[in-house]
């Protein structure tokens, strides 16, 4: 689950990672009130799960209340790369001296968290690192000992950050690691990690120190761990979700919408992915990925049929089941029940193998559903459904 910037920053603040003062807002009025509270100048920021918000005009500085109101009005409802802005974050404006980059990511290859630090943060960090990989320093952390002081020092000295920031960056990284592990994150990214200019001499008479602040937050939480974080699970993620995907999620199905016209249902992610590939190779275009899951009961199957058919582009549907935990008779009953509730109006091709496959096939034969065809192999079923779906461009192989 991806979090919005302000949601990530709230987690940062909870673990002591320094962030500028700010408040979220859903309306122009709330935004103005938030601006009054954090003080001027402030920044009005679109809260969407996509990069390039600044370039798209979704981040504006307000020097006074009138500015804040104008910017809030302009940004709310704005479309940024297909994401509609429903929420704003109004934040105290920060002076920028330097921009670093810091992150903890789950490294699948090493099976450990990896800490990353660069003194070349900001919007162009990816391009900079592409050109000069050494600009990004990486250090793996053994999850059994956690983030230690030496990790921070290695990163800081190797990245060549300014001497006066080594202490504060190290301490920020330790708190960021705490956020990463305690919140079950797959990613915590701070770009830019801001170094403020020295403040004017403080009351004590000495020159003010430069401070290190997280100016942005990109946080992804492990969906499998949401049961440990009920407050995060309740957050509105603001993900651009399409109506079928939303419907599927409410019903506990794993569904991804694609561009084609062949509806697909299978059990097990690997088999479903393979089914999409085989349909594409047979010249068809899959309309969706739908994994009904292991041990699918008949009501889950009925529900899945409704989700698939709610996409108006679907002109034929393929069921490809190899039962292990899943019982083919349950799948057949689910399909029969779906036909009793709705009139699909499109042809179905059904391939059942595995646990209780004979019973499943017999149930289907007895029910004699209109326009439902059974096939005995995966390849045969894919070819049949592509033929029945019609209207395909005949493209083969991979699509982006």
């Amino acid at each position, binding site marked *: 689950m991806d979090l919005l910037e302000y949601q990530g920053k709230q987690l940062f603040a909870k673990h002591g990672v320094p962030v500028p003062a700010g408040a979220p807002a859903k309306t122009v009025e709330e935004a103005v009130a938030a601006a009054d509270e954090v003080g001027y100048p402030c920044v009005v920021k679109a809260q969407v799960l996509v990069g390039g918000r600044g370039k798209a005009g979704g981040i504006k500085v307000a020097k006074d209340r009138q500015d804040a109101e104008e910017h809030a009005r302009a940004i709310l409802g704005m479309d940024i790369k297909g994401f509609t802005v429903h929420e704003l974050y109004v934040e105290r404006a920060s002076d920028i001296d330097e921009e670093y980059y810091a992150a903890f990511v789950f490294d699948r290859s090493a099976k450990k968290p990896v800490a990353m630090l660069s003194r070349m943060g900001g919007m162009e960090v990816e391009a900079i690192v592409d050109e000069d990989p050494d600009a990004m320093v990486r250090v793996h952390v053994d*999850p*059994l000992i956690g983030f230690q002081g030496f990790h921070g020092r290695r990163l800081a000295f190797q990245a060549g950050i300014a001497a006066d920031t080594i202490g504060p960056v190290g301490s920020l990284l330790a708190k960021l690691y705490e956020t990463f592990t305690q919140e079950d994150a*797959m990613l915590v990214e701070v770009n830019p990690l801001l170094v403020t200019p020295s403040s004017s001499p403080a009351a004590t008479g000495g020159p003010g120190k430069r401070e290190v602040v997280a100016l942005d937050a990109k946080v992804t939480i492990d969906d499998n761990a949401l049961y440990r974080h009920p407050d995060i699970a309740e957050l509105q993620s603001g993900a651009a979700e399409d109506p079928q995907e939303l419907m599927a999620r409410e019903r506990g199905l794993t569904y991804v919408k694609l561009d084609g016209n062949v509806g697909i249902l299978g059990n*097990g*992610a690997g088999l*479903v992915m393979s089914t999409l590939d085989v349909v594409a190779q047979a010249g068809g275009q*899959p309309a969706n990925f739908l994994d009904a899951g292991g041990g699918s009961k008949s009501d889950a199957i009925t529900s899945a049929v409704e989700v698939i058919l709610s996409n108006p582009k679907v002109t034929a549907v393929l069921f490809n089941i190899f039962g292990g*935990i899943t019982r083919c008779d349950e799948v057949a009953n689910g399909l029969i029940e779906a036909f009793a509730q709705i009139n699909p109006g499109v042809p179905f091709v059904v391939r059942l193998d595995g646990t209780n496959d004979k019973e499943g096939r017999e149930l289907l034969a007895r029910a004699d559903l209109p326009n439902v065809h059974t096939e005995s192999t995966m390849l045969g079923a894919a070819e049949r459904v592509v033929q029945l779906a019609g209207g395909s461009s005949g493209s083969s192989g991979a699509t982006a």
Partner: protein
Amino acid sequence: MAVLVDTDTKLCVSGITGREGSFHALNNQRYGTQVVSGVTPGKGGHDVEGIPVFDTFHEAVAETDANTAMVFVPPRFAADSILEAEDAGIDLIIAITEGIPAHDEMRVYNHMARGGSRLVGPNCPGILSPGKASVGIIPASFFREGNVGVVSRSGTLTYQIGNELADRGFGNSSIVGIGGDPVPGSSFIDIIELFEADPQTELIVLSGEIGGDAEEQAADYIAENVTKPVVAYIAGFTAPPGKTMGHAGAIVSGSAGTAVAKADALEAKGVRVGRTPTAVADIAMEIIGK
């Protein structure tokens, strides 16, 4: 011979008193696996159709000499159960549980990497050595004994490929599901190493999918260390970048981890890649068919 599970396997099932746990434990027993005990905290002293249940793995090992564990408990208890089995001295732990938090998996993996036990899974269908033993949820009746070793990240896709091979008369030495999670206890390489050393195995089938770089690592390993023929399959050529398709492991970002990149990496090292499960069986036929 076979790999990992065979007639010497003495299985203890964690979560044996649960609905799924008891169903599959008994299924494994009917197949011929020695299911010697189960563990459910608080149910010690009971039995499941004659299989004794203990409160802890330590008791189960002491009383029944279990050498293999199958973990069937819900995700929030699974990491604990795996670590308990390891602490009790179980050699091989097979975790079926789906949905274990990634940080738990990471801690378990890094702990076990230091010890003597082997973990297969989590989020895997288990291991079947046809004619000898079945541990897990693989529908065993579809497979018979033979010379093809299968290692796969996906459950149902494994059955599909196994079935295509069976249709052409092939049997299997062992079928090993390593699971689709981001931190599998055993990698392709770990299992391929076992198949290479197993005299019964004459051909190795590797079934991968998008996400991560386990297939690319396996390609390098095969080129350096494997003398037996390997045929590969990769699922997810039509997966759109950036979307997760069910398995937490199957996340594509950028070019790395795509099906094309994986197939290219394998082919560059001389491993033939079937573009459909049927094509995998066709290639197997060409290589060792009679």
